């Protein structure tokens, strides 16, 4: 495992990209930063600017208008960057799949490293997903 990957997994700065989500996933995402779960233990903090991001968190459906914007934001992020889709909507389109403004699942626009289904997923599930993602990232470069 290279030093670059080692420090990247120890200091993931998360950029939360909400694609018109219903707020349930957003609330559960913020839950992981509250005192009970406290993801800052693993160096995970939220950042406001895409230029500071190491991990892009997608939530909600990305429709005909917003999917290309999400692609633009992904291109503006400094590489290496990890993308995680949180919730049923971001993973597959969820209950909005096939509606008039929906085109493709967001994975057709952005390469996604981890899918985290659930409506919404529990904070425990998110932490478990983060741990699995970190293990995978470290394993990849061995």
């Amino acid at each position, binding site marked *: 495992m290279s*030093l670059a990957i080692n*420090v990247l997994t120890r200091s993931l700065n998360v950029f939360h990209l909400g694609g018109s989500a219903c707020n349930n996933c957003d609330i559960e995402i913020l839950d992981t930063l509250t*005192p009970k779960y*406290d993801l800052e*233990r693993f*160096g995970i903090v939220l950042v*406001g600017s895409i230029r500071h991001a190491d991990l892009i968190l997608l939530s909600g459906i990305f429709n005909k208008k917003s999917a290309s914007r999400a692609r633009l934001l992904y291109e503006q992020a400094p590489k290496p960057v990890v993308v995680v889709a949180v919730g049923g909507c971001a993973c597959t389109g969820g209950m909005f799949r096939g509606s008039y403004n929906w085109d493709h699942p967001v994975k057709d626009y952005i390469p996604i490293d981890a899918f985290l289904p659930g409506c919404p997923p529990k904070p425990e599930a998110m932490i478990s997903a983060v741990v699995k993602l970190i293990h995978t990232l470290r394993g990849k470069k061995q």
Partner: protein
Amino acid sequence: MDYTTLLLQFVFFPGFLFTAVVGLVTSWIDRKVTARVQMRVGPPFLQPFYDIIKLMFKETIIPSGSPRLLFLSAPLLGLSGATLASFILWRILLNPGQSFMGDLIVLLYLLTLPAVAAILGSFASQNPLASLGGSREMKLIIAYELPFVLALLVPIIKAQSMRLGEILAFGSLLPSASGVLALIVSILCMQAKLTLVPFDLPEAETELTGGAFIEYSGPPLGLFKLTKAMMLFILPMFLVCVFWGGIHFAGGWNSMLLGFLKYIALIVIIVLIRNTAPRVRIDQAVTFFWGPVTGMSVIAILLAFWGW
């Protein structure tokens, strides 16, 4: 002294490497205490080091249309200012005989360089939010520099000297009323110089999403973060030297421990202010610094003149 020794001192001890390591450890203390105040566990000890090293491996994006040279040299300007300030301060602290005429004024200018670098960088990044952060930083400098300079006049009047070495030799100002007032004024100015809550207007995570540093990524952002951590070490140390008698290395372990405790006390005050105050508006900040704080520093100067 030959130049090789001087260069080695500048790079290792007491220059860049020493300041960076102690500054990052101090920023860990800041984050850990903040987490404990919020009933959280907080980040591990090496977290600030991971953050900086990670940024060194990331891609650097230069916004289209921005002046490349200015955009990339601004973080270096801030870092060199902070390093030089720490170098001069520690050389005098370790050996007061190396003090030169007007070194206090040199330090005052060098400690402003990181803020100037943030302004230059934010205007070079061609982003409206960054420009807003830069203009706020500029107004904040205008606001806090006046009371800060006035407060520094108190030790100059007391020690009858502009040399830091002689101010250190004069000892602590705290028994006097003017010294206490000047220290309170400079603690408030230090909070604004470090752009910590309640004066974190230039960055303002919730409204400007990173403000002055919004377009920075990779190594330049890492240098800005490193500069901030170093300033968290240098500024309290500077105040300890000027107002509180400094650290005496000649007097054995007890006096060294006492000096270290003074530094820790200032850090605790900074962290507690940061965790208990909400952010102010820029007009409130300017009114606060030019009104009550400047008034307090003027009273401190008058008391110092009367020998209090």
